[in-house]
């Protein structure tokens, strides 16, 4: 049953969890039954939670020898029929990039939680950063798509992990939770829902596993061991999986479909929260933990009767230009505070139809304070 509602085994109601613990709970609720990972700060609590819980739920857990092995095992597990995931941080993400491309190209559902720390390189391993936004989308070679969500609370570490699994299974695409160290280690109240909508991969016996009639279709996803004689390959392949490494038509059609199947559904995937946009001359565009500080700053500015609003991006990939074009059309300019040197500000700039986009970057290993965002609002409004 591709789409169904489940009753959670977790007791519903208020609980105090860390963001990383909530992400693990969300994964289990979404039906994740395989985890492979490698220790890395600040994501390791996700792996430790899965190690404690997965075996008792009939799932499999393995600590692999490195991050390359981890995501490779996740792909193997996904084809064996399990909803599967890993979690890491910047350096691990860099190591996983080749296999991320394999997952995109072979249409393998998997979820990757990146609890971002201050990069580049080893950087400040215990400090917060948000510099992996572009790496998540463009880190592997070639043209492909991913889905990525940006949680701003412990509750969203849970709910957006579920959403990442749902989209990953629906579209047969790698899906990210692009969390940040401060949210992963944040401990706050989270209300466990009683019921959840869950999507599973669709399987039609005998259907071609790697092609559809539609130019943006998602093929049937079989699994190993049921007599399908699957041919899974990271080389260019036809609808049945046979390698076609010299056929320009097959390659172009495949690459285009893999991109279109995500982009055609961007409107449904992309979620936002709007605050005070009706009269806003300046729109603060914020995501992840930074959005908490941004909302505080916007509230303080509104108290001083500044015409400022906020757009919180819940989905980062695919990135939709439409909401920015609409706001720009109404005359708004933009302020983008983020824990990197303007990775999303650049996307907003491209979408802002010539309106001013002010980047407010911070890469000092700490979260952006409301006062800094408020000062920037006062300066540019």
């Amino acid at each position: 049953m591709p789409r169904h509602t489940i009753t959670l085994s977790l007791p519903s109601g208020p609980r105090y969890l860390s963001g990383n613990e909530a992400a693990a709970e969300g994964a289990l609720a979404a039906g994740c039954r395989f985890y492979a990972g490698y220790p890395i700060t600040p994501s390791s609590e996700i792996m430790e939670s899965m190690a404690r819980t997965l075996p008792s739920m009939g799932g499999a857990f393995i600590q692999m020898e490195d991050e390359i092995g981890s995501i490779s095992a996740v792909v193997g597990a996904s084809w064996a029929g399990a909803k599967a995931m890993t979690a890491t941080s910047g350096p691990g993400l860099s190591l996983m990039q080749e296999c991320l491309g394999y997952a995109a190209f072979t249409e393998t559902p998997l979820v990757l939680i990146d609890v971002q720390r201050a990069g580049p390189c080893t950087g400040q391993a215990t400090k917060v950063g948000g510099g992996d936004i572009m790496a998540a989308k463009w880190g592997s070679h070639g043209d492909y798509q991913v889905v990525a969500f940006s949680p701003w609370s412990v509750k969203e570490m849970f709910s957006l992990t579920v959403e990442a699994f749902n989209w990953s299974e629906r579209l047969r695409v790698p899906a990210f939770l692009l969390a940040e160290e401060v949210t992963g280690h944040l401990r706050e109240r989270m209300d466990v829902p009683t019921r959840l909508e869950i999507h599973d991969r669709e399987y039609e016996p005998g259907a071609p596993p790697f092609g559809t009639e539609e130019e943006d279709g998602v093929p049937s996803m079989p699994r190993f061991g049921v007599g399908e004689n699957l041919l899974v390959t990271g080389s260019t392949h036809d609808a049945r999986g046979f390698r076609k490494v010299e056929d320009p038509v097959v390659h172009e059609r495949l690459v285009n479909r893999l991109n279109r199947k995500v982009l055609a559904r961007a409107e449904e995937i992309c979620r936002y929260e709007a605050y005070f946009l009706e009269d806003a001359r300046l729109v603060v565009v914020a995501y992840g933990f930074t959005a908490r500080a941004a909302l505080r700053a916007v509230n303080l500015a509104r108290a001083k009767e500044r015409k400022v609003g906020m757009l919180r991006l819940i989905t980062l990939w695919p990135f939709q230009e439409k909401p920015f074009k609409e706001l720009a059309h109404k005359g708004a300019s933009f302020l983008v505070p983020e824990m990197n040197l303007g990775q999303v500000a650049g996307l907003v700039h491209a979408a802002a139809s010539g309106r001013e986009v002010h980047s407010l970057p911070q890469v000092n290993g700490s979260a952006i304070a409301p006062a800094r965002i408020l000062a920037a609002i006062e300066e540019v409004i």
Partner: protein
Amino acid sequence: MPRDLQQFLREEVKSTPFCPGCGHGILLGLILRSIEGLGLDMKDMLFVSGIGCAAWIPSPHYRADTLHTLHGRAVAFATGAKLVNPNLKVMVISGDGDLSSIGGNHLIHAARRGIDLTVICANNMIYGMTGGQAASTTPAGSRSSTTPEGNPYPPFDLCKLVKAAGAAYAARGTVTRPYELMAYISKALETAAFSFVEVMSPCPTQYGKWNELDTPASCFDELSRVCRSRTEIDPEVPLPENVVILGEFDDQ
């Protein structure tokens, strides 16, 4: 004789991509004959391979589930699949460069864990697909496109390596001794833990070209000349340079 293997091969595949004189076609058949001999059902089998000539032995030829992965990562992919579905009989078939160089870490860790995989390493002592570069298995002194003056480094002894890491079974055979090799492959398949068979397989196109063995016959002759069974070694007779010891490595 090929006709009786037809049930194990995809009917869409009419020929192999292997060069004339390549040993991989022989190995392709010997693995299937071993499976047939044990009465295993291809429906229960998963074949995982990496990147390189040997990775094309199962994919797309074998009529079974096949997973053609990234360079070096076949064992890690196989680990995930086996853990999710322990009923799958999982065999990894790949080359020496793939399994022991770029993928060496996954190989030794799978051996250490004792996970029930059978790994067949087709060792042609060189990177064939990319044009004949030196591998971690190229004999010392052998020439290649990246060691034109001769390889300054000794090769891995892969059987000793995986045994030291914890493999339950390790053996080295050669396509020039097919019946012996089939016995090793069968024994590996019957081992319910990590098992490893290294298969010497000649590459006239690349290894041969660089080492004055540029006909299939000269490659096979040379392999026969340097191979010695552990049980055949006569202490009175000196071993050839770069000797390849065949047999089961049951000791650490």
